[in-house]
């Protein structure tokens, strides 16, 4: 489902040549999430830990009567965990009729970037997160790594 969404998103943005991203920061690295896939941004509260779950799953939480599975992006990207008591932000995403949210250090802004400025991920990024990224944008002085949300949320394929 989100594939279609992503696909149509590409099509739309193709038309005016611009792509919109919500940029988030995870351990000083800037990441972009295609805005069409984001439902909302919120501050996560009361996350229930799920025993024996994959370590990338922070737990489940209640978002206005909906049960949302929280993915710890630091863990997902194999980065060291945040310090105790540090604050999180959550980016709500729907995938295959299931609700998820990505826990990130902070949410920055919405960015509109020309489509053609997206480049394939450099080797360094590929080595680390090849599966999770769909490309990069070069901003002044820093790299914006675009996340492939579908792969980030697909826990099964990896296991297989």
């Amino acid at each position: 489902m989100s594939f279609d969404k992503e696909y149509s998103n590409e099509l739309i943005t193709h038309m005016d040549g611009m792509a919109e991203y919500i940029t988030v920061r995870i351990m000083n690295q800037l990441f972009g999430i295609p805005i069409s896939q984001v439902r909302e941004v919120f501050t996560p509260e009361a996350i229930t830990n799920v025993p024996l779950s994959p370590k990338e799953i922070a737990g489940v939480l209640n978002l206005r009567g909906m049960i949302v599975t929280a993915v710890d992006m630091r863990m997902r990207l194999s980065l060291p965990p945040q310090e105790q008591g540090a604050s999180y932000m959550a980016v709500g995403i729907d995938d295959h009729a299931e609700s998820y949210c990505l826990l990130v250090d902070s949410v920055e802004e919405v960015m509109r970037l020309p489509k053609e400025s997206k480049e394939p991920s450099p080797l360094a990024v590929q080595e680390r997160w090849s599966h999770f990224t769909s490309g990069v944008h070069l901003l002044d002085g820093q790299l914006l790594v675009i996340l492939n949300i579908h792969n980030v949320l697909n826990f099964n394929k990896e296991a297989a």
Partner: protein
Amino acid sequence: MGAWKKRINAVICIEGLRMDDLVAEFLSETVESLEIVDVELVKFEQDPSNVAGLDKVFRLLHTVKGSAGFLGLDRLGTLAHSTETLIDCFRDGAPVSDDSMTLTLEAIDRFRWMLEVLSENGQEPEGDDKEMLDRLAEMSKEVRERLENPSKGEAKTEKGESKKEEELSPEELNALFEQQVAEAEAAMAKEEQQNTKETSQDEKKASEVALNQQQHVAPDKPSPAKENSEPSEPKEAKGKLKSTSIRVNMDTIEHMMTMVSELVLTRNQLIEIIRQKDDASFNAPLQRLSSITSELQEGVMQTRMQPIGTAWQQIPRLIRSLNQQLNKHIEIEMIGSETELDRQVLELIRDPMTHMIRNSADHGIETPKEREEAGKTGGGTITLKAHHEGGHIILSISDDGKGINAEKVKEKAIRSGLITEADAIQMSDNQILRCIFEPGFTTTSEVSAVSGRGVGMDVVRSNIELIGGSIDLESKLNQGTTFIIKIPLTLAIISALIVQIGDAKIAIPQTNVDELVRAQNNSEHRIEFIDKTRVLRLRNRLLPLIDLKEVLGLKKAESSDHSEDNEGFVIVANVGNRVFGILVDAVFHTEEIVVKPLSSPLRDIDYFSGNTLLGDGSVILIIDVNGIAKNVGSIAPLDQESEHTLHHENGLKNTSSMLLFKFGANEPKAVPLSIVTRLEDVPQSKIEHTSSGYVMQYRGRLMPLVTSENGVLPDRKTQHVLVFSDGDKTMGLVVDEILDIVNDYYDVELGSRQQGILGSAIIAEKATEIIDVTYYVAKAFSNEMTASEWGNQQSRKSILFVDDSLFFREMLPPILRSVGYYVTICESAIDALKLIENGGKFDVILSDLEMPEMDGIQFAEQIKSMQDYADIPMIALSSYTGSSVSSRCHQAGYLSHVAKYDREGLISSLFESISKTGAAA
């Protein structure tokens, strides 16, 4: 037809319906009609006097024909017409033949197919049904002829007329029909003008129908179309039905259900908040909100409820085709078809149920010939029964067929490695039968078209367990088999116990909870540690405990010292026939929770079945007790047999929990935990020494204590006592040290020459001897000098058992010991003779017949020739039975001759032989 169509179109316009809606309506109505047609046809075939049912079929088909006609569905219409013609022959009393009924049902199936295509494409399928129409026409002709020829003379006038009518071609009939309709139209149009405008649409329709009939019947002879001469009562009934029920899209109900679930959650949330606020002014409205919500919830659940009969509707049809395929005459009986359950559950049990019925028909019920040979009457019956019991529905599928052969199941189970031979000996027939639910098990070796396609009962079981149900069976050889399925009424909202484990709250479904026990150090229900394993004393048994904290990995490293958390709550849970305790920190309350599935990355965790929102808005996980039981290895089974038959069954299941302890000699000893009644730590001061040995006061009675061979109590303040009970007898085994409880898989090697030891096994990488509790119970009571059936030392008879087969040397002695004999084993007759010559004394000799070197006959002759031993009763064992063998045995001096597998026969002839010699002496 033109006027009719116009009229209908007018109605459509008034109601604001579109053609699509009309087609959809037609589809759902016709699908329902066809189901009824199916049922009625099969009923009619069985009972040709059931003309009312046939009339119903005719009417329904007629309606289909009519509706298809004005919707422009010509293919359906034509087929309906031809089928109707054939059925009309039956209505006139033509005998129903098998092939004609099969053809009719085939036509009905063709309808279904066309309807499916129609619902997918919005169009009738391409092509035509010429071949089927021809067959139908031919069949009608044939049937009609069959009707006319034998019954020419007696045909009533009415029949004669109807025959005349039948001579009209279908086209002519159609024309006639249309004409009548047109007349009716005209008449109605007039009448309607006179009618007041407020007549409701429904009434209009009803009057339309009624008028139609009048008009149709009046100008004509009463005979031509029987459907119209039918009293209008059924149609009126249908009209009434229509006004009291409406069709609702399934999605709408599903959506309502979701919303109600949310409402329940919100209500719970509100209650939680108010509870904290302590403001009485909210109480009354909250109470009201609460009760309304509950009622609403019930109401919506009710809309999802459907009688189980809807899932049974296809079954008579299924049985019919099975009968044809298998050449059997099975009848189906359905009891409790009005029992309602959730639509979702209904859908989920449909397939397992059909599978089991196929199984019963194929494997359960015998062929007519076999039935005759077995002295059974009738072609066999499969009975479906359903009823409510608590929050469950109990569904049973039974047949009066040949039953399941436990021996065959046993062989198969052993061959496929499900159980070992040692297990098999110890298992009751029912336990063995349950093997058929294990994966990869099927009793028929060949695959048949009807069942046994590799999808076995394990799939049935897992499907049923998936919806929180359970399945069991009972089977009696030559009397039949009954499968009993227990399923929850609904899946959406369940009642759950909210508990605390560590920092987390967790929900445990109530259906799995038997009772709740508060375990305290000084109470009767105590948690005890046997090495690292916990058990709970509950009434008369030790229950294995599962620490959820440990299972879920929530245990903190530093709390490995377990002495501190000896107190807590134990939820006694049951899954299938297994009962075990789940240890939790605290129990809050029960709550109605809405089960929501876990997201896909979490779905692989077997311990959770879903998650839900609590009243306070927090998300909690729902425990899957099945998953817990499955993953925590095996848990001592608890069933009637193991409870009471201490002396028959020593519970040597290779995966049962074993209690390891030190007793006497150095090797660790073991005993199945399931037969230990209690574990007591007894202060030395409470143990008294009497002339008959050690005793202690236990629950107001004296309990004999048995110590290890040397007969001396270990010198210490408290003694570990294992308490065993059998009936009203209770004895204590004073052990040196309790080592552990293990749940490993192990092979028990039966047979030991040492008294009191049943066999040995490698447990926890150490050779371990399995204690024969029977022996010690007997010992305790012989010490006590009671003349009980355990017998005292003097009355215990000794048996010399001679057999060259290792298998029987291992299998029989434990059985013999368990019924109170001392057994000495010899591998050959020559060894046995040596033993006797050396002065061995035995009360009975039990010998195999087929042995190398010296066979049983020669052996007996030898014994009988010895002066001192000529009187010893001898019993022959043989795999062969038959009078010639028996007479040879008698000649050789054997008292009796028993088949090797006939345990009971053996025991009773042993008993007889001993009582005989007793009387002689």
